[in-house]
């Protein structure tokens, strides 16, 4: 599951990736004609809209790609860098950049491309951007207020607008295509030419049709996550699903034995987990099962993954989800944590005649009843002293 950094690709290798990505980036920009300021500013005077075409096509392609990868569970969007929103600095900074665009004829990326093929104006622009950044750095205390005002966090546009992601993606794509058509018309007028405008050739129509079919099939079928969560709401589906069970006694035995192959996935609330957490356990919500943290834990080889919750049914739902997501060695605590509590934590030796078969069990439980709270206390101390694990977004941006 993506992103591949930092687990699959380490920080050193990431620099190599950066170099390769950069080569692709520079190549694409230069091939598109972004190494000449004439082509870049053409957008603002109506004679050449190449920038808009390349830019919008690239943005829409990448956006649809991100949505598709997330839709099929291949990319954890919670981990990728979403540029944070600071309303005023975004607007004012953007306008200043616009001023720089029409006076300098480049933006930072394209000026480097231009410089790379020998454009002296590109090199000068790079020097200028160096000075501009230096000015910002030196005068930072003056701009800090504006820089940090109206912080909205890592929000996404469809959340801000209060619409669904799919609708937003559709609207943006539609706007892009409309802009392609419209600007081609402007271009023809400004240049006084009667050349070909924006039109759909058979090849483009075919490709568009194919894309629409793929898009529709993907989005008409509910996405993996929704589909699975819906399945779990179906009680007959859950009850007919066969998941191996582990008894409270076995779980207690393995914990006391410090069986390192045991991993407990605790689906109880954070509060319950904090007050009565078991050793070797990690807390998850059902929703978290789709994320990369769950992947990291559950894809470990030769582990027994025991799902617990207060009742067995909730635990079983988590276990089913894990199985459906393709993880193996999934078990569920029989009777849930309530049973564990009754059997072990609050075990009381039954009075009266004890069945001979139960003698050993009861002896074990009496013992476990003493040991388990100690283990849980140790675990609690270990956890509260250690730092809290939190989902960390990758740091990015300019």
């Amino acid at each position, binding site marked *: 599951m993506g992103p591949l950094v930092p687990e699959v690709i380490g920080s050193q290798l990431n620099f190599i990736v950066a170099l390769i990505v950069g080569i692709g980036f520079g190549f694409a920009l230069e091939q*598109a004609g972004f190494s000449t300021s004439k082509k870049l500013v053409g957008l603002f005077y109506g004679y050449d809209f190449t920038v808009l075409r390349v830019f919008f096509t690239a943005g829409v392609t990448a956006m649809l790609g991100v949505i598709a990868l997330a839709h099929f569970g291949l990319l954890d969007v919670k981990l990728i860098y979403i540029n944070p929103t600071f309303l005023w600095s975004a607007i004012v900074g953007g306008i200043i950049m616009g001023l720089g665009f029409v006076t300098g004829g480049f933006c930072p990326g394209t000026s480097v491309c231009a410089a790379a*093929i020998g454009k002296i104006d590109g090199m000068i622009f790079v020097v200028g951007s160096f000075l501009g950044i230096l000015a910002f750095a030196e005068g930072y205390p003056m701009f800090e207020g504006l820089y940090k005002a109206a912080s909205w966090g890592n929000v996404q*546009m469809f959340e801000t607008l209060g619409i669904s992601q799919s609708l937003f993606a559709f609207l943006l794509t539609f706007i892009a295509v409309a802009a392609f058509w419209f600007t081609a018309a402007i271009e023809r007028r400004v240049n006084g030419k009667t050349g070909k405008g924006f039109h759909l050739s058979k090849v483009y129509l075919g490709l568009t049709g194919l894309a629409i079919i793929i898009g529709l099939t993907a989005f008409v079928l509910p996405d993996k996550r929704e589909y699975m969560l819906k399945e779990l709401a179906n009680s007959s589906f859950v009850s007919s699903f066969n998941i191996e069970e582990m008894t409270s006694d076995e779980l207690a035995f393995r914990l006391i034995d410090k069986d390192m192959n045991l991993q407990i996935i605790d689906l109880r609330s954070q509060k319950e987990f904090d007050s009565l957490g078991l050793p070797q356990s990690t807390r998850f919500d059902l929703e978290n099962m789709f994320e990369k943290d769950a992947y990291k834990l559950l894809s470990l080889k030769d582990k027994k993954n025991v799902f617990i919750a207060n009742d067995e049914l909730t635990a079983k739902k988590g276990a089913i989800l894990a199985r459906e997501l393709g993880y193996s060695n999934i078990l569920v605590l029989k009777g849930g944590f309530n049973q564990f509590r009754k059997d072990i934590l609050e075990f009381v030796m039954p009075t009266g005649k004890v069945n001979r078969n139960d003698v050993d069990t009861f002896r074990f439980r009496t013992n476990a009843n003493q040991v388990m709270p100690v283990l849980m206390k140790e675990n609690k101390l270990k956890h509260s002293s250690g730092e809290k694990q939190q989902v960390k977004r990758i740091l990015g941006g300019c």
Partner: protein
Amino acid sequence: MNNSKYMNPYLAGVLLGLVLLATIYITGRGLGASGAVKSAVVASVESVAPSHTGNLKFYKEYGEEHPGNPLMNWLIFEMIGVVIGAFISGLISNRLKFTLEHAPGTSAKVRIVGALAGGAFFGFGAELGRGCTSGAALSGMAVMSTGGIITMIAIFGGAYAFAYFFRKLWLSNKGDY
């Protein structure tokens, strides 16, 4: 206009979009450009006036966010790649040439001043706006970031708003090339 030597813009756009998508999938972050210049600024100031960077808030905050050598930075490597990639592209398409490009109606001097000032504005704006056309606008659009999209609208909106005042820099009297 001679467009034939450049790639079809939609094809180039798809190519660029796939590069960006691969970047997000592999590294979890988008592309960038001005950030590399920022690292270079920080590194230069550090080597010229080391005590200065320790005092000023901007450098301190930068140091907290990016521990270690400012030049050992993802964007620096990416930008080295951009130089190589653009050079290869220029080589293939026979566009390698030392030249100062300026519109027929303007002098070289005007172009130099314009490029320097434009770069300075863009660099400054990119710091304030947390990213430039690549890092904020394009990458922001790919991940549907509100801030990125607002910055994008502001960049292009701002450019259109100022375009009229600087038309003499780009358009000769006839209005086209």
